[in-house]
């Protein structure tokens, strides 16, 4: 029962896929083909990410991390989180395990949110790529607007979460 509840999303999606296979065989078969192909891409992308967070787990000292990005890190913590975010050019799904590790090591929640939001919307390694396709103006306007939005989202969510919510997030991070 516990396993069922824990993997409810996986079970629902599997049922949907099976239903597609029965009702629309063509779409269903295509879906399985895409799933296998994407699984390889995911593994390829996630292997270095997980190696890095595994090493972070054993090498990074919690105290040092709290000093850098923790509760009393103030503007230094904000700056480090933002810088770390914008140089990390990975999709959202690969970003989350890194965020979990930052939480486990005692980073402030608002800083982790800055990291996630900045990395999702501003990716410095990809800027030139964006410029070459979308042009300077498009890229720069998005960059500037996103800069403000990153902090807006992080601050709003941080203010909305109460102590209980925050404790839950940290407890959860320890279990990962």
């Amino acid at each position, binding site marked *: 029962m516990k396993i069922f509840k824990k993997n409810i*999303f996986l079970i629902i999606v599997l049922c949907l896929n099976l239903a597609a296979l029965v009702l629309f065989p063509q779409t269903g078969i295509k879906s399985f*083909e895409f799933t296998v192909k994407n699984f390889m891409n995911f593994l390829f992308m996630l292997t270095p990410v997980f190696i890095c967070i595994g090493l972070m*787990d054993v090498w990074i000292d919690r105290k040092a991390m709290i000093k850098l990005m923790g509760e009393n890190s103030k503007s230094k913590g904000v700056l480090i989180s933002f810088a770390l975010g914008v140089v990390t*050019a990975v999709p959202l799904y690969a970003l989350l395990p890194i965020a979990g590790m930052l939480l486990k090591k005692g980073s402030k929640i608002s800083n982790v949110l800055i990291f996630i939001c900045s990395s999702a919307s501003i990716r410095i390694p990809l800027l030139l790529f964006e410029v070459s*396709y979308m042009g300077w103006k498009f890229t720069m306007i998005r960059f500037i607007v996103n800069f403000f939005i990153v902090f807006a989202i992080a601050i709003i969510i941080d203010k909305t979460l109460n102590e209980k919510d925050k404790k839950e997030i940290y407890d959860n991070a320890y279990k990962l």
Partner: protein
Amino acid sequence: MNSIFSYYLYGIAAILLIISYLKNKNKTLLGLKKALKMFLNVLPQFIAILFLLGLLLAAIPSSVIKNVLGENSGISGILASAALGSITIIPVIIAFPIASELLQSGAGIVQIAVFISTLTTVGFATMPLEIKYLGKKTTYLRNLFALIFSFITAYVTGWALR
């Protein structure tokens, strides 16, 4: 195309691994063991995302994406682009060339901008994974605000590039 940036990640991981191994062999092995454990812990969520993504890709062919972004205009087109960006997971490396091509063939800049913003910041399919790391409340709020602000970014971009 996507692999260029993955190689950059592999480079970083390899350098860190070598430094770590030279400094302390046992600690490195422990780190790798922990990495594997953490990976297996979220594997069910990842597999679910993959199946959902496969289904979405099979049900929404790229021609549909091109139609939604390229031909619909006005508010309904912008909403459809936002919905499309929120539910699909396409690497930006693939999305930018498509977006650029659509712009040249006359698609609205607001649609394209909202699509790119939602694609990168709003993750409908990855929500269960995000909940696992950040909890329900933070996940819902983050995705909601990311969606709202995607419209703002898109309108500002559209207004500035008029």
